[in-house]
């Protein structure tokens, strides 16, 4: 049963490995969890999931897989031998509570009532209510209390209904398909860092000094080296206006995150698609333009180029000369794009439109081809893939 659960988790995109699965089995063998669905859920999640972003997926698979599994525990409990029950009760009760119960009657009486209660409960279940879900009359799961009316275990701790923990899907927000905040963006962009030592040697190189001193028969020989700096250079090209208005917030966040993260950051704006001109100030876009050719000459090939745009337009705007909605362009956008892609080997396109919709929009498919498949959604997960892609050179088409 668990093996299938394991493979279902993998299919659902929770990265579970065999090591983790084995450690879950080991934990089960070591009796870390007692006989309750809730504890089993906690334990399985603890051992198998290593990132809260996957909790939601885990919850969904768990709910689907163990639908009705609570009933399994129920069956087991109906058949438990008496001393087992006693042991369990001893473990769950504090000394004080035990004394209270003893004052009310003997252990045997308690166990008798307990078993009787279990039998009743079973009948009631056949009537349709769930074992843990509703009444919580069982002494083993959550919300249990003993027949004389004294609570077993820590009352407050177990008030939450077991079944509901995974059904309530509280971790939905942590799934990484969600929208992103500046801080998360920074963390994702940080992976682009590449450190190198350049410039004046003004930092003491301790390792080098010791090494040189040792070679120098113990007489101090100071060694200096340049400071370590992030040498990644980034060129951001942002689509503004029109259909991009819906995505302004996320673009702003990306921009501000990138700004503080890279020392060498350049940016330009374009509208819908890239043609012969770009601009830096959106208010003076018609007067102060930089020609795309000049941009290509200014920035060398180690710049990481990140396009941000929804690429949603009429396909003519890409493939036809004069297709632009704003002005007459001598050359088609696709020609400019090919030029740029040939000049910059490190290039990605981030698209704020949801990835599922890409195949339905011809202009997105066209752009996808022009950037050689390096289009990623503007989500955390997409940004991760984009930064990974930016570390490798693109294969020229």
């Amino acid at each position, binding site marked *: 049963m668990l093996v299938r659960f394991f493979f279902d988790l993998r299919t659902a995109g929770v990265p579970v490995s065999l090591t983790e699965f084995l450690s879950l089995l080991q934990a089960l063998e070591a009796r870390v969890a007692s006989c309750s669905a809730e504890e089993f859920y*906690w334990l399985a999640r603890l051992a198998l999931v290593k990132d809260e972003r996957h909790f939601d997926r885990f919850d969904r698979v768990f709910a689907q897989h163990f639908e009705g599994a609570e009933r399994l525990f129920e069956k087991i409990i109906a058949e438990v031998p008496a001393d087992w029950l006693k042991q369990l009760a*001893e473990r769950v009760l504090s*000394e004080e509570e035990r004394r209270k119960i003893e004052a009310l009657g003997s252990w045997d009486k308690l166990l008798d009532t307990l078993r009787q209660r279990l039998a009743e409960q079973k009948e009631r279940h056949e009537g349709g209510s769930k074992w843990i879900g509703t009444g919580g009359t069982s002494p083993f799961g959550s919300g249990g209390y003993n027949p004389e009316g004294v609570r077993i275990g820590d009352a407050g701790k177990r008030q939450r209904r077991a079944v509901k923990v995974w059904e309530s899907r509280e971790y939905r927000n942590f799934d990484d398909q969600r929208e992103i905040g500046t801080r998360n963006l920074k963390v994702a962009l940080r992976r682009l860092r590449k450190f190198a030592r350049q410039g004046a040697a003004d930092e003491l190189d301790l390792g080098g000094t010791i090494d040189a001193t040792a070679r120098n028969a113990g007489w*101090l020989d100071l060694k200096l080296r340049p400071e370590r700096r992030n040498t990644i250079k980034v060129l951001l090209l942002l689509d503004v206006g029109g259909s991009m208005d819906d995505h302004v917030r996320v673009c702003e966040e990306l921009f501000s995150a990138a700004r503080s993260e890279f020392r060498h950051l350049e940016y330009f704006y374009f509208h819908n698609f890239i043609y012969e001109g770009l601009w830096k100030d959106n208010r003076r876009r018609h007067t102060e333009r930089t020609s795309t050719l000049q941009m290509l000459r200014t920035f060398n090939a180690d710049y990481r180029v990140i396009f941000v745009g929804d690429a949603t337009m009429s396909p003519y705007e890409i493939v036809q000369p004069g297709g632009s909605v704003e002005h007459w362009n001598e050359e088609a956008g696709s020609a400019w794009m090919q030029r740029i892609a040939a000049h910059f080997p490190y290039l990605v396109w981030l698209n704020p439109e949801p990835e599922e919709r890409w195949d339905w929009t011809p202009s997105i498919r066209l752009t996808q081809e022009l950037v050689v498949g390096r289009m990623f959604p503007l989500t955390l997960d997409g940004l991760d893939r984009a930064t990974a892609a930016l570390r490798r050179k693109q294969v020229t088409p």
Partner: protein
Amino acid sequence: MIEGKSQSRFEGTERYIATGDLGMAVNAAVTLARPLLIKGEPGTGKTQLAIEVATALGRPLFEWHVKSTSKAQQGLYEYDAVSRLRDSQLGDPRVADISHYIVRGKLWEAFESEVQPVLLIDEIDKADIEFPNDLLRELDRMEFYVYETRELIKARHRPIIIITSNNEKELPDAFLRRCFFHYIRFPDQDTMSRIVEVHYPNLKRELLAEALGAFYKVRETPGLKKKPSTSELLDWIKLLLAEDIPPEALRSDDPKKAIPPLYGALLKNEQDVHLFEQLVFLNRRVR
């Protein structure tokens, strides 16, 4: 039997409320001797957990606070080459024995402990991306090799390792596979009132109810940069008590007093304070 239970199982302490799933996480990690990785919103008691586990189980605690400049090696040992160099130039006889210049790290100290210790590796995500990878073998086999003195250091007892992370960097898969993972959820109102009770047992019931109500209201304000968390709530209640504020002052139905007093303890940056004030102002106009 009861005494035995309180020493081998962790179920929170007098000052620390552990929910059932957290208790289970700690117990599973102790039983199977796996490191336990703890994440959660800032201020939900991640670091405190290790301290409380050590107290509850009666174990010595070793704390290793990781910084952005920390290296994995520093947790094992450091070879103080500079002192040795200085001593050699001064002609100190100690210089002949290299072991005088090996400075033990937290991990080594924990390995040498007479009883099974608790080792806290705090904020592991602050360090370099490669940091966790450099600790793989040490955490797996609980041993490491000191090259300078050519000795193998083995843990006498596998320490209970608790690692906290604030999610600033992702941790490598190979590292994660070796850990158990628990995410401390933000406590619901019931748990929260128990937490407050543990810290301020003599708090008046009305004040607690009003304070919690106001607190969750602030937390639900959309668009806050940093939501107030448990530790901020506790600070705030401390202030309320110190200033002797009556529970009526917290009642938010009164539009004039809609901003909770001493809110500076809850909201930690000016944008949030500003946003909150604006929302309250808007609410007032609607009335």
